[in-house]
């Protein structure tokens, strides 16, 4: 009896996983379709460029305070942790090297993207979701206004352009914060730390590190739009849509980060 129950449990679990995978793949397919539709409408972007500028402002500029604060702590924490890990084994002249590599390849781009995803994917998911619930999307269709062109393209373009800029800004702040941390709490001179930063510096790392955040930007905007479109019911549906948008965008950012690390570096 117990064995039978165990087998049934395993079966349930297995089919649950299959189900989950299928749902995930369906969402992925729909997000890809949305990407395709967005790319198709890209040539029309300049006819309504003001919409994109509005989005750039709300997505990029309004994220600056949050990104700055986060960057300050990223810089300081990286230095502190590196010093602790190095103590007794690695000479501190390599401190700059370690901080530089981690900041420009992974922590800077991925951490910033995740933070922006949490701010922007929620807002896009909630906006599109409530527009769907209140029939505003239907109203647009009835007026022959293409929602992909007037809503999704500006948001996607804004994310793709603004996220790398935010990341560059965040890395600058993180470096300044790391330098200040070194000056005030670590027994390394500024000269040694800076020469460590420059040691083995590869511009390719920086370029790929920044460029990959454009991909993350597209992921954030498209998952937000997609789960907003899927919203059903009332306010609860919108809430669910935003949660799913954040979870999916963070997950996809990590997946794509891994793929890029695997194939590009």
């Amino acid at each position, binding site marked *: 009896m117990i064995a039978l129950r165990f087998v049934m449990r395993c079966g349930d679990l297995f089919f649950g996983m299959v189900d989950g995978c299928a749902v995930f793949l369906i969402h992925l397919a729909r997000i890809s379709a949305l990407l395709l539709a967005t790319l198709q409408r890209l040539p029309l972007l300049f006819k309504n460029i003001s919409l994109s500028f509005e989005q750039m402002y709300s997505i990029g500029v309004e994220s600056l305070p949050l990104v700055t604060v986060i960057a300050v702590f990223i810089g300081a924490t990286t230095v502190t942790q590196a010093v602790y890990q190095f103590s007794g084994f690695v000479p501190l002249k390599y401190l700059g090297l370690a901080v530089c590599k981690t900041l420009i390849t992974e922590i800077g781009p991925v951490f910033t993207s995740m933070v922006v995803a949490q701010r922007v994917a929620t807002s896009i998911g909630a906006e599109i979701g409530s*527009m769907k619930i209140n*029939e*505003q999307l239907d*109203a*647009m*269709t*009835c*007026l*022959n*206004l293409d929602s992909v062109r007037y809503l999704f393209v500006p948001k996607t373009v804004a994310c793709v352009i603004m996220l790398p800029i935010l990341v560059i800004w965040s890395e600058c702040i993180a470096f300044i914060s790391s330098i200040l941390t070194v000056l005030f709490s670590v027994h390394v001179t500024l000269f040694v730390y800076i020469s460590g930063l420059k040691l083995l510096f590869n511009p390719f790392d920086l370029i790929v590190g920044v460029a990959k955040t454009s991909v993350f930007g597209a992921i954030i905007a498209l998952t937000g739009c997609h789960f907003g479109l899927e919203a059903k019911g009332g306010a609860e549906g919108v809430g669910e849509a935003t949660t799913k948008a954040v979870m999916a965008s963070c997950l996809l950012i990590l997946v794509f980060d891994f793929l890029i690390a695997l194939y590009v570096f």
Partner: protein
Amino acid sequence: MAIDIEKPTDAPLLKIEHLKKHFGNQLVLDDVNLAINKGEIMCIIGQSGGGKSVVLKHIIGLMIPDGGRITLEGEEISSPTKKPSDFDKVRKRLGMLFQGAALFDSKNVGENITFPLREHTKYSDEQIQAIVVEALEMVGLQKGFQQKMPSELSGGMRSRVGLARALVMKPEIMLYDEPTSALDPIMTDKINELILSLRDKLHMTSLVVTHDMASAYRIADTIAMISEGKIIFSGTPAEIRASRNPYIQQFIRGQRKLHYAVSAAADEGAAFSQHVDVNELKQRLTSGKRIFSRRADDPNRQDTLTGLLSANQFNEVLEEELERSARDAEPLALVICDIDRLKALSDIHGTEFGDMALVEMGKRLSKCIRGSDHAARLESDTFALILTKTDPGNIMKTVDRIRQRVIDVVLRTQKGENIRVTVSCGIALASETVSEADTLVHNAREACAAAKNNGRNRVELHAP
């Protein structure tokens, strides 16, 4: 409505044929057929969740049907093989006002209205501004409203802005999805006025989905009722009021009694026929069922013997009609008809004869009255008629005519004798002093008793 309607041309402007739609396993539209003429205002009524809005969404291409088709001036615009992108051209001729107006809440009123104009036309800013001001004026809003955000507006104002947004594209057909459902009575009236004025000024064809019967009566040229995915009625407001279908009657009188309608409809259609076939009755009698003088088991059901309203239903209908007559200042008369000496007759000629007399009487009474009137069987041999909109000056003559038609029948007993059955009628008129149902019934009964005392087979009016 003092409006001259242009005579509709033969071919309808918009025609919906056999429209079908499923959502998952749920059949929402089964077989919807509608035809709308140019310049006509059609109201689609029905229960919430009955698929009214779904019909509109099919017309404007937000949904693709599973079966059937929609034609606009003979040209097919929607069918299962069409794609949403095929609607781009058609939508220019259609406008839609959503429930709650669906204004874009990130844009102010002015931007909401100009958005479609800027994208689809090449007008200059001045021209666009002029169009917007004109549209706002048409819906009764001032120019200053343009800077307000949708969140600052009340429900009625939102609806008007939504209407203005649809109007600037100059649609030929306007579709309204519950335009007045969330509005107070004054705002509802204003929106109704607007819909009518658009028909007058722009000769616009309108299709209004609503469950507000007052609005439907006010604006509609045609009312179509949808139930269980089918159009079960389509006709003028006067026709729907006169309809004998209990479901329709329950709906247009108020939804609280819907369960009668459903149970009556389930009664193998017998409830719809309003009268029972005498042959069928005889069969029932020979099979040993005695139904003479039997009260209906379920007081909510229609009277099983005659198919008229039961006593309980009668009380509710009477109260509603009294309310309505007080509100609309229309006359209302209650007539109590009592079959003369029915007990004695059935003692002599058998209870079958008594049943036959009752059935025949119910049949004749229901034939004598108009669609807006009601007939009920109160007790074994007492019937009641509610006559609405009957001139009180002529009431005696009217009722006497009914009496003559009722007694103009000869029943044959089992022994082959021909017997003429007569009735005594008492009338009571509703007035400001007599506005209670109980008082009215009491007065009518008194008048009926007076008619019996004064020699039977006659009509008496209760003297106030």
